[in-house]
């Protein structure tokens, strides 16, 4: 019998049905999926059990306590530390990236020395010999910059600078503004904020839940006072130009122009004085007279955009609260100057909450341990932007400029001039973990250790409500690259120059610091934080410096006020979390360009359309961006993200620091740049 057509079709159909009843096609599909995914370049995961180490984040300006999780001896992950008072188990986006920093592709892997136009690798002994030679030649023509607000490493650098007869600068930020404000007002100790115990928190400008001060701790305090599904126990009010991270969750929001926090605080002070508030200071009468005469509601409305009705309503609420607290600062963590912080402190003093629960506090300074180190206020005494501007203009010419944990060529206003200053200095040394913009311009780059590779410490970051000390030991057995702590480098340099500081390394320094404070060294080494609730009693506090000579916004032909936005997810002044930058928002970066936001009215007045490519131009520089129309931004204001356009790292977007323009603040001698203005076209 032959195979006819019918039989053939029957066989095919029967075969298909039979095959379908077997597991063959399903198993084959399953195997196909498995084997087409079995590529050699897909990594396998580690298997060993986890090991936890506790440190305080040095990248997070708020010093959040973290637990670093290591597998197979490799730190891979960061989780919160529930026992640390500055984090309570929470994380900031930048603290979460501490392990990424360890393996950042932009790390400096070996010392680099400039030969012609290029930076070329050299050995540590060559680099240290060159550094010694340049330091010896420079003598007192030495300038040292540190961007570490919380570590004893800055004390080491400042002590070395003092012994060498050079000039020392701290990178500008809110801690610098507060240090100068307390100096002007005669306040002893460093300024703290007891946000946990306040029942009314008024935030002027400062992004207290994102980038200002101890932001993770602040957020935890906010969370505790706003239980989900329950009654809030504190009211948070924000005044600023953009409905950003902090304003979005606050209980009330008042629109106020960028850089207006100081004038707004003085307007509130005037209302409080009119309502009968006094302060036990010798110059209260003069303060009240200045407030009454100069900070009229008309001026406040003109300069800040806050109406008299709103101003008086806030003042009434402040006066009625049991434990009110006022936090005043820059919207993006720098450039506010001393007057803004001082005016905020003056309002707190009028409210009677200074050194009281839920109020502002004076926290004792840590004892200095490095011989010859200046006090904290002396460390913050000089203005870096003013100095580097003078270098750029040829009025100063340091023979040796050393920069640690700061990136003046990227993260300061007048960015082009700052970069010019780095180039013009006789010899520039960058003590940096990353080959950032400043390091690229330097003559010698010394690879600095990251948080997990070094002995370091964190003492009471700005904004903390009590004295807190954390000591970090290296988490990794061997550093990822041939790096050293900048403190160790400077200690060795001082020894080689015969300026010995009395310590063989940073480990000895931080242990001496812990002992000087009376902390339990063994507990500190386990990663536990040391706290001290004692406050510094005050006498001779002066209010007048808070009221006198506020810088008004310039009327310079630029149409829009600039509101820079800082988010820790985009890094800090020194660090860009490139490996972990998955949290950038479409409101910050689109199609490879920075996004600037204006509201519909501002857009119409300036001929701007959604998604249009524009150029922002200020007195000091310009940048390109795309427009996003958003009602989160106040009329007459353009919001621009900071933290993008890091050319050294090949990052997309533009650097909004180039738009910042500088004004001089009377009394304090600080440069301020929160009132920058731009044109958009």
């Amino acid at each position, binding site marked *: 019998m032959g195979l006819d057509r019918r039989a053939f079709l029957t066989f095919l159909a029967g075969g298909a049905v039979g095959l379908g009843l077997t597991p063959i096609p399903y198993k084959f599909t399953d195997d196909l999926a498995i084997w087409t995914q079995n590529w050699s370049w897909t990594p396998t995961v580690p298997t060993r059990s986890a090991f936890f180490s506790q440190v305080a984040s040095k990248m997070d300006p708020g010093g959040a306590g973290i637990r670093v999780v290591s597998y197979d001896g490799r730190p891979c992950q960061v989780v919160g530390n529930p026992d640390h008072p500055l984090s309570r188990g929470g994380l900031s986006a930048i603290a979460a990236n501490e392990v990424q920093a360890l*393996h950042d592709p932009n790390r400096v892997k070996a010392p680099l020395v400039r030969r012609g136009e290029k930076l070329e690798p050299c050995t540590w002994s060559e680099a240290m010999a060159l550094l010694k030679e340049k330091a010896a030649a420079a003598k007192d023509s030495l300038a040292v910059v540190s961007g570490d607000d919380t570590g004893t490493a800055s004390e080491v650098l400042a002590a070395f600078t003092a012994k060498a007869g050079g000039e020392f600068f701290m990178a500008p930020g809110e801690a610098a503004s507060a240090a100068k404000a307390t100096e002007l007002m005669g306040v002893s100790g460093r300024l703290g904020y007891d946000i946990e115990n306040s029942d009314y928190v008024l935030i002027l400008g400062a992004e207290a839940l994102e980038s200002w001060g101890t932001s993770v701790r602040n957020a935890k305090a906010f969370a505790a006072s706003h239980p989900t599904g329950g009654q809030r126990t504190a009211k948070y009010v924000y005044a600023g130009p953009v409905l950003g991270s902090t304003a979005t969750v606050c209980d009330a929001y008042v629109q106020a122009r960028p850089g207006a926090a100081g004038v707004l605080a003085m307007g509130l002070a005037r209302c409080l004085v009119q309502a009968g508030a006094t302060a036990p200071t010798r110059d209260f009468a003069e303060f009240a007279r200045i407030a009454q005469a100069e900070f009229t509601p008309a001026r406040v409305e003109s300069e800040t955009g806050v*109406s008299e009705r709103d101003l008086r309503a806030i003042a009434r609420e402040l006066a009625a609260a049991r434990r009110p607290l006022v936090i005043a600062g820059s919207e993006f963590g720098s450039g506010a100057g001393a007057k803004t912080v001082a005016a905020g402190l003056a309002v707190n003093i009028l409210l009677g909450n200074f050194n009281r629960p839920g109020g502002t506090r004076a926290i004792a300074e840590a004892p200095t341990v490095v011989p010859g180190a200046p006090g904290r206020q002396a460390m913050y005494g000089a203005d870096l932007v003013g100095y580097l501007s003078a270098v750029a203009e040829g009025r100063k010419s340091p023979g040796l400029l050393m920069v640690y944990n700061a990136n003046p060529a990227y993260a300061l206003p007048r960015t082009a001039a700052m970069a010019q200053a780095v180039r013009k200095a006789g010899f520039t040394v960058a003590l940096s973990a990353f080959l950032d913009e400043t390091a690229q311009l330097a003559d010698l780059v010394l690879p600095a250790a990251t948080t997990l590779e070094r002995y370091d410490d964190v003492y009471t970051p700005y904004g903390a409500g009590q004295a807190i000390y954390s000591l970090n030991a290296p988490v990794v057995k061997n550093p990822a690259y041939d790096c050293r702590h900048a403190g160790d480098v400077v200690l060795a340099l001082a020894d080689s120059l015969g300026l010995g500081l009395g310590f063989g390394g940073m480990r000895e320094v931080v242990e001496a610091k812990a002992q000087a404070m009376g902390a339990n060294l063994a507990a500190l080494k386990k990663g536990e934080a040391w706290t001290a609730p004692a406050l510094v009693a005050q006498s001779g506090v002066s209010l007048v410096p808070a009221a006198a000579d506020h810088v008004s916004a310039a009327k310079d032909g630029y149409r829009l006020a600039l509101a820079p936005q800082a988010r820790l997810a985009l890094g800090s002044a020194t660090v860009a979390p490139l*490996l972990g930058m998955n949290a950038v928002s479409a409101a910050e970066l689109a199609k490879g360009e920075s996004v600037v936001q204006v509201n519909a009215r501002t857009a119409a007045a300036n001929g701007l359309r959604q998604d249009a490519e524009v150029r922002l131009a200020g007195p000091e520089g310009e940048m390109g961006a795309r427009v996003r129309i958003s009602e989160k931004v106040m009329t007459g204001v353009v919001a621009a993200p900071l933290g993008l356009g890091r050319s050294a790292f090949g990052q997309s977007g533009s650097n909004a620091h180039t738009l910042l323009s500088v004004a001089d603040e009377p009394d304090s001698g600080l440069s301020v740049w929160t009132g920058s203005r731009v044109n958009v076209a």
Partner: protein
Amino acid sequence: MATAVDFRIRWGMVIDIDKCTGCGVCLSACQKENNIPPGQDPADRMRSLNWLFIYDLSKAPGGQPEAAFLPRPCMQCGKPSCVSVCPVIATDKNEEGGIVSQIYPRCFGCRYCMASCPYHARVFGWYDPKWTPEAKELITPHTSCRPRGVVEKCSFCHHRFMYAKDKARVAGEDPGHLAEDAYIPACVEACPTGAMHFGDLNNPEHAVYKLKHDPNAFRLLERLGTDPQVYYISTREWVRRLGDNYLDGEALNAPTHRYGVIGHGGGHAAAGAAHAAPAHGEPAHGEPAHGEASEGGQSGHGKE
């Protein structure tokens, strides 16, 4: 539509939108925990592999400016539309706890599940992940590394569920009755503002059991009947109205299911249409309408 299974334990999340600052630490924590490869452009939805997105919500122009951030993990739906369409059962909802699984070695990348998910909770690896030598140093043991051509999604950090059960067994406790906070995903753990809560939605001892009954609790696109295990809370009606597609003037919906107690249901007119603009890499779903601008200098919202 899959048939709902009545699990004794239903892990779920309650997200308090009024406390989310959009800081993005949940995204960072998720990336490290689950070996989501670095180097992606988060603004490019086609390439982004983030398991969690944060939507940027704005109240419509015209009144006082108001905004909110809405983190969106996988909803772990009670009736998941992704499960029934998967030809190879690479995704399923068959384990006590009610977490929708995703088995990477079984997935062959047809992306039916992505098309069927109304929440855009699933992502697809179009390209080989860039595991540079530096990035490889950061791989954690929790989640296997996926090649290209595979659909991925949030698993509520399912490995942490397994770790918690193991820990309970070692301690001689019942792994089927975990205490509050014995198991929480990485995003919830990292959140500094306490906006995210996690627990067993069926367990009266867990906070989420009470929170899901909050009068201001709602779920996304609830009327589709997917029965999500993620709840949101906002005291602001304009935010709650964004949770579903309401007609102008339509009241917030009445309870439609056994867990649904949504809004006040008072039949108030809409407080004004609102729009959701994308943040953190999510594409725009239509251009937001921009009408009258807010006045500079006027006072803003008050969640009194």
